[in-house]
Structure formats: structure tokens, C-alpha cells
């Protein structure tokens, strides 16, 4: 099972099968993420993006095959060790009433602490760093329910950052945010990748944002990987038709030279 290329890959799947009860969502997935890159998963609603991301974070049981973390079988590792190496922010989390931003971010230290947590200096530093990276320092004492959607999302991201993991998985981190807050989250992901060398995997819906902010794109359709590669190689008219059922003009982004997509018709 331990192929040499897996040792270099933060997360790989091997004949991974994922199902809810008897309905198989992902029949047979072989996927290998590249270290130190920003990877975006794109695909239509219901194609299994969240299901795959959750399996990569060990949030759901697998029906067959396995996931490896740098070549080690994910399911055989202790839960807290996984949480020290890999942080996952699921879609639309809800906090208990009355929880403050700072209290939430402190939970990010849970995997680093023992059975009876004490607040060590390095924990305090990590929390302060996570708050400042997300621009949430000034909101530390606020309860989450007294924040805007964008601020709340940044508070959750801060919690994941406080885990100080090398790998960060974000499921639709920009959904429900206005455009400037979307860019803020994407730039944060990019900065964490460039400055800290974190491996970032996101599920994104906006194709142009995915192209612009990712080193690698994984396009999914019906629980399978349709294409994986650099944005300029993956985002082709054929892919837009096959995966999204769209006809689109592809322009060239003046900044990056990558494709810029203007959909103009449905094919089905």
C-alpha cells in the first residue's frame, strides 16, 4: 500500500469508496494532493465534494479503500495527532449560544493539550496569531451571534488556524460572504500557503476565484475525479460542458494569464 509517491503527498486516497447507507456516492477514488499547494475542488452541487473532503479529514467512515497522510493510513493514527497535522473546517458550522470569538479560537488548541488543559505560553501565542491573521483580534470578546456572517466565518477559520496544522481543509469557506469578504478569505488562504508553506484544500463554487487562487484544480463529477491539474490545463470548454453543462467564453485574465470564464448558455 505504501507507494513512494504517497510519502510525499499530504493526503492520498486509494480506491476510496464512500457511501451513505446503501447509496454509493464515491465509488472508486484515487487522488493525490501535492504538498505546499493550494488545491481547489470544483464540481456541481451534490457531486460529492463535501463527502470527499470529510473523508480526507476522517470525519466519515470509509466503505472501502483508504486515505493516507504522508503515506500513513489515516484511520490508524490517534485522533489528536491527526488534528495536530490536519485542520478541517466543515460547511456552515454553528456555535453554542454565548460563545465568544476568543473562546472559540481556544478550541483550536484542543489537539495540543492533554486531558486536563492548561494554557501554556505557546497556546496563547497560537491563539493571538490566529486572531491577528484573520483580523479578528478586536472582536475577541464578542459572542459569535453578535457578528456578521463574514466575521463569523473568519472566527471559525481562526479556530482552525490555532490548530497550527500543516494541512488546512476548508469546505466552501466563501459561501454566504460578500465579494470583498470572499477575497479576504481567499487571500488569507493564499498568504498562509505562501508564507507558512501550508497545504490548503478548498471547495469553491466560483470558478474564476478557483482559477485565480489555486495552484491545482480537482474537478469532480458524480463522485469521480474528472480532471486534476493546473488551472489553465483543467478549465477547458470541454470540462465546462461535461461537468457543469455550461457553454462559456474563455478569456485570458490580464494579471495571471489564466483563463477567465464567462458562461453564456446551458447545454442541458
Amino acid at each position, binding site marked *: 500500500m505504501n507507494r513512494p509517491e504517497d510519502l510525499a503527498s499530504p493526503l492520498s486516497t486509494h480506491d476510496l469508496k464512500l*457511501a*451513505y*447507507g446503501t*447509496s454509493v456516492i464515491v465509488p472508486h477514488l484515487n487522488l493525490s494532493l501535492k504538498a505546499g499547494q493550494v488545491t481547489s475542488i470544483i464540481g456541481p452541487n451534490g457531486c460529492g465534494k463535501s463527502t470527499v473532503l*470529510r473523508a480526507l*479529514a*476522517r*470525519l466519515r467512515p470509509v466503505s472501502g479503500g483508504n486515505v493516507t497522510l504522508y503515506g500513513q493510513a489515516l484511520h490508524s493514527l490517534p*485522533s*489528536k*495527532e*491527526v*488534528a*495536530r497535522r490536519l*485542520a*478541517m*473546517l*466543515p460547511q456552515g*458550522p*454553528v*456555535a*453554542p*449560544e*454565548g*460563545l*465568544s470569538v*476568543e*473562546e472559540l479560537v481556544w*478550541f*483550536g488548541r*484542543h*489537539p495540543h493539550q492533554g486531558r*486536563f*488543559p492548561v494554557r501554556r505560553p505557546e497556546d496563547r501565542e497560537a491563539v493571538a496569531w490566529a486572531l491577528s491573521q484573520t483580523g479578528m483580534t478586536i472582536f475577541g*470578546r*464578542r*459572542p459569535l*451571534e*453578535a457578528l456578521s456572517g463574514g466575521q463569523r466565518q473568519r472566527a471559525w477559520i481562526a479556530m*482552525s488556524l490555532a*490548530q497550527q496544522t500543516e494541512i488546512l481543509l476548508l469546505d466552501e469557506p466563501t459561501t454566504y460572504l460578500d465579494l470583498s469578504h470572499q477575497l479576504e478569505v481567499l487571500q488569507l488562504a493564499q498568504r498562509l500557503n505562501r508564507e507558512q508553506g501550508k497545504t490548503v484544500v478548498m471547495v469553491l463554487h466560483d470558478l474564476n476565484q478557483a482559477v485565480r487562487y489555486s495552484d491545482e484544480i480537482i474537478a469532480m463529477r458524480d463522485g469521480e475525479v474528472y480532471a486534476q491539474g493546473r488551472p489553465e490545463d483543467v478549465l477547458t470548454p470541454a470540462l465546462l460542458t461535461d461537468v457543469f453543462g455550461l457553454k462559456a467564453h474563455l478569456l485570458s485574465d490580464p494579471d495571471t494569464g489564466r483563463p477567465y470564464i464567462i458562461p453564456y448558455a446551458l447545454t442541458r
Partner: protein
Amino acid sequence: MRKAGLPQSGRVLIFTGAWLLLLLALLASLALGASEIPLTRVAQLLFAPDDSTDSLVVHALRLPRTLVAGLAGAALAVSGLLLQGVTRNPLADPGILGVEAGGACAILVMVVFFPAAPSVLFVPAAFLGGVLAAAAAYSAAHSAANSAGLTPLRLALAGVAVASLLGAATRSVQILFETRAQGALFALSGSVAGRTWEQLWQVAPWLGLGLVLALLFAARVNVLALGEDIASSLGARTARDSAVLTALGVVLAAGSVSVVGPIGFVGLLVPHAARALVGADHRLSLPLTALLGAAFLILADVAARVVDRPAETPVGILVAAAGAPFFVLLARRIGRRA
């Protein structure tokens, strides 16, 4: 705007207030009742019992009854807090898994069918009834669980089903054996009247241990309360932790039902009050819930003794009457938030 996370001084104030309230409740409970004993005399008798009737009343009647009420109140309230946290259901309480219905049914069965059984068996029987009801709810939810697993909603629905089934059984027995069931009526409404030292010692180890464990596990409730996905991604072993904490909630509830009968609302309302005072951190809200739960049930029992003096009113009825308006308030608050 409301700030989450009180300053240190605010917390100290709140906990001091809660301890004072508990002390006040204890003293009132020793002093008030069919006969009134002045506080100075209570204090004196507490440390130096004599042969007087007052001394007998304080030591043989009011002290065990007060301690039972306090322990049961704390246990019920903490049980509610644990279940609300673990299931992320703000309306969860010890009744949600059928514990109270199971305990009540067992009490009635003992009174009607085994009237000659030694009195020491009544408490364990009721305890067993509560635990078995919860186990039935759990396994019903488990066997019906599909891919989505054992969700809190599924568990709550199974609990409601078990509770109404047991409720129907209880009422049938009451109707079929009307005369013999008379003796259980008071107990079935929830009461601490006439509780003895022996009964206290039967439940104290369970409830005491349960409360200590709950305090030790408070930090884990915090993590679970973030929801299963977040808790797992933080490295918590959610299935194991929520099973352990649910079991703890069941033992606390069954222990208190076994000695005071079914008393609603305490497990639902006191945790909300505690959280409103100190916030979402269970390391604070759990001890506060225990203190307030104890004080609340003791005070309710004092009221039950004096409201229709010299007759006793079942404290469960009083709590229900006082609790209903709070419940409406709570529902409105939660409704507004959603």
C-alpha cells in the same frame, strides 16, 4: 451589546451569590415546615442535638430530607446540562430519554405488585427502571439508525416514544389497581417528604460520584457542544465521549428519580439560568448548575411544606406550576434567536 465571557470579578460574585443562596435554602429548610424553629435554635441543635422534639425534627426529618432535595436537585440540573450540551438540543432534559417515566413506572410497580418488599428495594428498583428506559430508548434509536447514524433527534424521538409507552403503562396500572396505587400517588408526583437517612445513603454515592465525574468531564462537553464534525476535527473521540456523558446524565437523572420521583423542569431550566449567568463554558456553568439546582429544589420543597400547612404538597407539582411560565419565557427566547 452583550459581552461573552464575564470578567473574573463577575464570576466570583455569581458563585458567591450561588453559595449564599444554597446556604439560605438549607437554613430555611431546617427552620420551616409544619412547625417553625427559630434559626438560632436550628444552628444550636445542628451542632449539639438534644432530646427535644425540635432536635428530632431537625435531625431525623428535615436534615435528611433537605440533603436529599439538594443532591437530587443538583443531579437533575447537571443531568439536564450534560444532555443539552451533548445533544446540542436546548430543550433536552432528563425526561428526554424516558428516564423519569421509567423511574415512575418502576415505583408504581413496586407499590402495587410488591407492597411487601423491604423498603430498601424501592430506590434501586426505581433507579433500574430509569436506566432501563434510557437503555430501551438508546437501543430503539440505534436499531432504527441508518447512514446518518445515531443523531440526537433520533435519540430524542425514541426517548419520547419510550416515555409515552411507559406513561401509558403507568396509567393503566393506576386505573386497574386503583386502591393499591393510592399509596404511590404522592411519590409519582415527585416528593421529598419523609425521606430518611437510609434513602439518602442509598443514592448519595451514585449521585456524588456522578457529579464529580461530570465536573471532571466539563471540558469535554465544551468540545462536543461544537457539534460532531467540529469536535472530531479537533481530535475529540466524539462517539465515545458522547456515550460516556449521556450515560452519566442518565445515571444522575435515574439516581434522583429513584429517591424523589419524577420532577420536571429543574433539569431544563436551571442549566439555562446558569448559562445565562456565566456563558457557554461548561467548566463554569456545570458547577453553577449544580449549586443552583440544589438551592432550587430545596427552596421548592420548603414552599411545598408551607403552601398548604400543615399538609404537604408534592414538590413536583409546585415545580411544574412555577416552571411552566419560565418554560414559555425560554421558548420565546429560543424562538426569537432561531
